């Protein structure tokens, strides 16, 4: 099964990291409602105004009742007319004192058409329980103790009583809901203008009577008001409700947030690590495929030359022995080429497995180098390449890994063979203070400075218009440098300019064997 691409893995893990981060932020997020207390000065002022108005209205109504009570006469049309002009009067009664107490005269002077029926019947003294709902029980001592006042009993009409100079007592029954409605209606009109200062101060505020809103500002909150100012009067209850503004404070739990961020960072880093590892694996796999293809390609060309030249040598053996011999020499050259390639592959394999070892022994560097150069002379000749040797005191016996040195020189010359179309190749060697210095310079197309290090990496081959399409495994220079380093030396590309050739310098320790 194919492993997922590094990019997909990276995106997946980073996506998970983002989801974890978002989830953690949501978990850590906390909200808290904060009440911002408002200035209620305008509201208190309005409440005082309403209270004053209620008192004024009640006083006014009481004045009207007192005037009727004073002026009422039994069976008088005038009294009836007066009573009808006042809102909410159910009936006006005059009670005369007698020996037996207050005589129920029932001088009914007026009755409101809206009043309850039957009309209330006054009763004094003990009230039979069965008749309690039908009678308004009046306490004589209370009636006589004050000049005027209210009798307010639950479930019974509201009564106003007034002691007249003639010792008669006027009792006026009032239909409370009618009066309350009138007062409420008046306050609604009054509040339309008087509520303005509250409105200017901002809301939400409500001025309401029972469930009915008489004036309001702002959108009332659904919850209970933060400030409730009740106003009670004989004719109904009013209230001013006010809500403070609320702000939502958002904060994050530091512990949850920290854990989330750490977790997300770990996942993101993990994604990065997995991405790099996968990319390295993919690149490594691609390089190995490329390596196999490159090696396979490199093997096929010399193998073809060997096959063709053996065929030719066999055909020409009798007719032209000299040419046949020349063909066999080519077979030898190509076989050596194959051998170098196979040696490189094996060296690379040993290096990868960590089995590469240095075997220093006594040898003469110039002889080793010369033997390698000799192998290249025929193919160099075909490429119009001339080899120039410059030797300085390298004929003495030194301690060195001869095979590794031969392989390095072979790979450097093979590089020249592949990429240099012609000219002079200078191979100069010298021994300086126990160090062998070898320089191979050519007159080829050169190597751009930016690729000076790239060419020493395995499988890397620089591309240019000159060598594009040329074959190669991409191992030769990498193996040469690796061997040089294993020998305790260096292999580097000296500074060159494009078009003026390349110069490789090898420096390895070569102490005298004596």
């Amino acid at each position, binding site marked *: 099964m194919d492993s997922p691409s590094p990019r997909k893995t990276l995106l997946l893990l980073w996506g998970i990291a983002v989801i974890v981060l978002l989830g953690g932020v949501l978990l850590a997020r906390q909200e808290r409602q904060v009440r911002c207390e408002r200035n209620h000065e305008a509201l208190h002022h309005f409440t005082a105004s309403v209270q004053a108005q209620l008192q004024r209205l009640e006083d006014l109504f009481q004045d009207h009742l007192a005037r009727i009570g004073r002026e009422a006469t039994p069976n008088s049309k005038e009294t009836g007319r007066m009573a009808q002009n006042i809102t909410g009067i159910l009936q006006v009664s005059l009670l005369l004192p007698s020996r037996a107490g207050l005589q129920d005269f029932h001088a009914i002077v007026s009755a409101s058409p809206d009043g309850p029926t039957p009309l209330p019947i006054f009763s004094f003294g003990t009230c039979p329980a069965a008749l309690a709902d039908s009678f308004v029980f009046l306490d004589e001592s209370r009636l006589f103790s004050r000049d005027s006042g209210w009798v307010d009993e639950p479930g019974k009409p509201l009564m106003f009583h007034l002691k007249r100079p003639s010792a008669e007592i006027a009792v006026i029954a009032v239909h409370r809901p009618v009066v309350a409605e009138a007062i409420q209606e008046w306050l609604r009109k009054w509040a339309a203008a008087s509520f303005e200062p509250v409105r200017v101060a901002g809301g939400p505020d409500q001025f309401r009577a029972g469930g009915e809103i008489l004036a309001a500002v702002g959108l009332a909150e659904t919850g209970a008001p933060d400030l409730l100012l009740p106003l009670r009067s004989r004719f109904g209850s009013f209230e001013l409700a006010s809500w403070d503004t609320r702000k939502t404070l958002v904060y994050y739990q530091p512990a949850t947030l920290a854990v989330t961020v750490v977790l997300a960072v770990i996942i993101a880093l993990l994604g990065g690590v997995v991405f790099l590892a996968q990319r390295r694996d993919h690149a490594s796999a691609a390089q190995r495929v490329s390596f196999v293809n490159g090696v396979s390609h490199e093997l096929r060309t010399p193998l*073809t030359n060997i096959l*063709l030249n053996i065929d030719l040598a066999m055909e020409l053996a009798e007719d032209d022995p000299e040419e046949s011999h020349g063909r066999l020499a080519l077979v030898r050259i190509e076989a050596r080429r194959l051998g170098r390639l196979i040696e490189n592959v094996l060296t690379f394999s040993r290096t990868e497995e960590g089995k590469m070892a240095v075997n220093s022994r006594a040898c003469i560097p110039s002889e080793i180098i010369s033997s390698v150069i000799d192998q290249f002379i025929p193919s160099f000749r075909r490429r119009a390449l001339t080899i120039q040797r410059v030797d300085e005191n390298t004929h003495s016996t030194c301690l060195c890994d001869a095979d590794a040195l031969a392989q390095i020189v072979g790979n450097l010359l093979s590089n020249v063979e592949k990429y240099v179309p012609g000219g002079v190749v200078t191979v100069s060697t010298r021994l300086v203070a126990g160090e062998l210095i070898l320089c191979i310079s050519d007159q080829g197309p050169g190597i751009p400075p930016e690729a000076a290090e790239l060419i020493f990496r395995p499988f890397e081959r620089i591309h240019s218009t000159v060598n594009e399409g040329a074959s190669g495994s991409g191992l030769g220079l990498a193996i040469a440098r690796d061997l040089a380093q294993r020998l305790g030396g260096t292999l580097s590309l000296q500074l060159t300019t494009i078009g003026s050739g390349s110069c490789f310098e090898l420096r390895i320790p070569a102490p005298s064997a004596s």
Partner: protein
Amino acid sequence: MKILFADDDPIMLDTLQVCVTTEGFDIVTASDGEEAFAQWNRHHPALLCLDIMMPKLDGYEVCRRVRTIDPQVPILFLSAKSEEIDIVVGLQLGADDFIRKPFGKHELIARTLDQHIAKLRKRIETNPDRPLIETVRGVGYRFRVSEVGPK
């Protein structure tokens, strides 16, 4: 009959040259793609044998350029590239055959002769009265040449 061989390996070029000249063909060589195209323009060989991986221009590009000018001339690829896709690309670009390295002399001659025989057959079919003046030497392949003659 003149054959163009293009390969960046000088030993390969030298060997191919000897192989086909001993069989009676003339040869023109090129060591890179640009030279191959120039040689084709100059000599108009009867057959092109191209390597694929060459400096300057690869064999595919040379084939493409030649095919835009001459759709008839036989083109063979002689390449170490051996994947199926390499062969398919070569054939799609108009090559007539693809010889995978490594190959021996007999395979090379047989394949180049196939191209030559096909060309002769076409010439006979288009002009049957014209005498067949082309001769091809080569032990082992002469009987195949006789197949293309007038019956």
